């Protein structure tokens, strides 16, 4: 059953140095506030996982929280590069960053296998690409019926998955709607689950497209209004596109970046970028 906690306490309880931490959110419901709390608490040696690492991952990487990144596409969506991500890979600053990269379908199916209690999943993909040789969690299986060869990806079971959602009720059940991406699978694959929510309500209204995660598969719920900012939360807030554009300039320079983090995240000023 989910505990309803403060975000700082929840991160302290659930995220430890060295953990494998998935923070999902496919362009929507991105757990930015939780990422900032991880930076504030100075976690180290994390293996960070996300299909589409964007600004908050750039921040975590730039602050040296991660020793490894498991990902599919790392960019500032609609803007360009992630400069801290690039700096870490290209020059090892501030700490070397090991990478394990997948196609989106491959990493998605790693979560699916993890959520399903299976050791692997199969897909048509990877053959002919350079990813096959670079990624140890991709291998080959043969269909026992047709003899065809298919790609196999190893199950991914993060130590902790963090997602953002619109609402929790007082029992700790969680409701999200809109684009929910791979949030359910990432949560069900994990050993521990933290959900940040915009709001805690007495009762859920049934919603078209609503996805409910029951409290008994969640460890902690923490209220984090605007917790996906500068991304959006359908029904609560819009994407601040200017903040994405502004991040490009902030993140290009190491000192500007550190100063921004100090000011907006460490000092606890509101984590808004413009």
């Amino acid at each position: 059953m989910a505990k309803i906690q403060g975000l700082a306490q929840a991160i302290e309880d659930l995220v430890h140095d060295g953990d494998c931490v998935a923070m999902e959110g496919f362009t929507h419901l991105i757990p930015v506030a939780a990422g900032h709390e991880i930076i504030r608490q100075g976690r180290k040696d994390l293996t960070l996982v996300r299909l589409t690492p964007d600004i908050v991952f750039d921040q975590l990487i730039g602050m040296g929280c991660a020793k490894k990144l498991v990902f599919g596409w790392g960019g500032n969506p609609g803007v360009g590069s992630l400069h801290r991500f690039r700096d870490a890979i290209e020059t090892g600053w501030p700490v070397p960053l090991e990478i394990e990269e997948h196609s989106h379908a491959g990493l998605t199916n790693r979560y699916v296998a993890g959520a399903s209690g299976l050791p692997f999943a199969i897909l048509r993909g990877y053959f002919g690409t350079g990813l096959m040789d670079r990624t140890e969690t991709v291998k080959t299986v043969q269909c026992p019926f047709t003899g065809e060869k298919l790609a196999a990806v190893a199950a991914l079971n993060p130590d902790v998955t963090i997602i953002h959602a619109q609402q929790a009720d007082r029992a700790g059940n969680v409701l999200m709607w809109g684009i929910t991406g791979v949030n359910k699978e990432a949560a069900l694959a994990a050993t521990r689950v933290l959900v940040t929510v915009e709001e805690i309500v007495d009762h859920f209204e049934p919603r078209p497209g609503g996805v409910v995660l029951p409290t008994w598969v969640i460890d902690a719920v923490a209220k984090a209004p605007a917790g996906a900012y500068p991304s959006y939360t359908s029904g609560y807030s819009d994407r601040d596109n200017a903040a994405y554009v502004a991040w490009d300039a902030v993140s290009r320079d190491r000192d500007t970046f550190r100063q921004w983090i100090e000011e907006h995240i460490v000092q606890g000023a509101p984590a808004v970028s413009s």
Partner: protein
Amino acid sequence: MSTGAARIEQSPGYDPDDMMIVAAARALRGRRVCFVGIGLPSTAANLARATHTPDLVLVYESGTIGAKPTRLPLSIGDGELAETADSVVSVPEIFNYWVQAGRIEVGFLSAAQMDRYANLNSTAIGDYDHPSVRLPGAGGAPEIAASCREVIVLIRQSHRTFVERLDFRTSVGFGEGPGDRARWGYRGAGPTLVITDLGLLRPDPETCELTMTDLHRGVDVDRVRAATPWDLAMAKDLKITEPPSAEELTRLRALQATQDR
């Protein structure tokens, strides 16, 4: 960025990006289902909807099937897409049930590098372990390349982008030539059309090697050869692309204006 204002000074009223978008939109005429990324593909697909193919089904990787955006989306997971879609499904479902199963007729890809068999690199420039430029990576490209029934590649044509040898092969065109796609178990036909700022290329039916089949108006063969590091195959009946029509440009400008809202 006020694209309209900057471009209007350019004779003949459109720039190479416009030509690429219009050519891509035209390639969608009469198609039913299209897998769309942000940028030129999204603009092209929405231009096709706004002109000749209003019922074109747009599928975005975020899980939105049949999105009918009234403005150009800012990301593939823009709320506008979810709100206007026939159905919003999970990302596992999009890849497994919709892309991999071959339900998408046309998928768009772009890349930093392409070789003569339309294999693509969007991973890294230079050595993988010590890249000079680390690019975003694969994302949905490998599955689009593998399983969409056809792929259209949008890429500028230069010695930087057209390369003899990719620094990394992120997603496949035709591998090393005929038979490779079948051997990998990929059911899509692969890149049947490459749209550049200079013209159109299509794979040779025998060799799978890209062949220049159309030049955009004002582009000549010498310019194309100069932009291509290998001895580019040229179609015998090289055609000239029709420039964007007044209607196409008007609709395109109207679409682009929605992004400034």
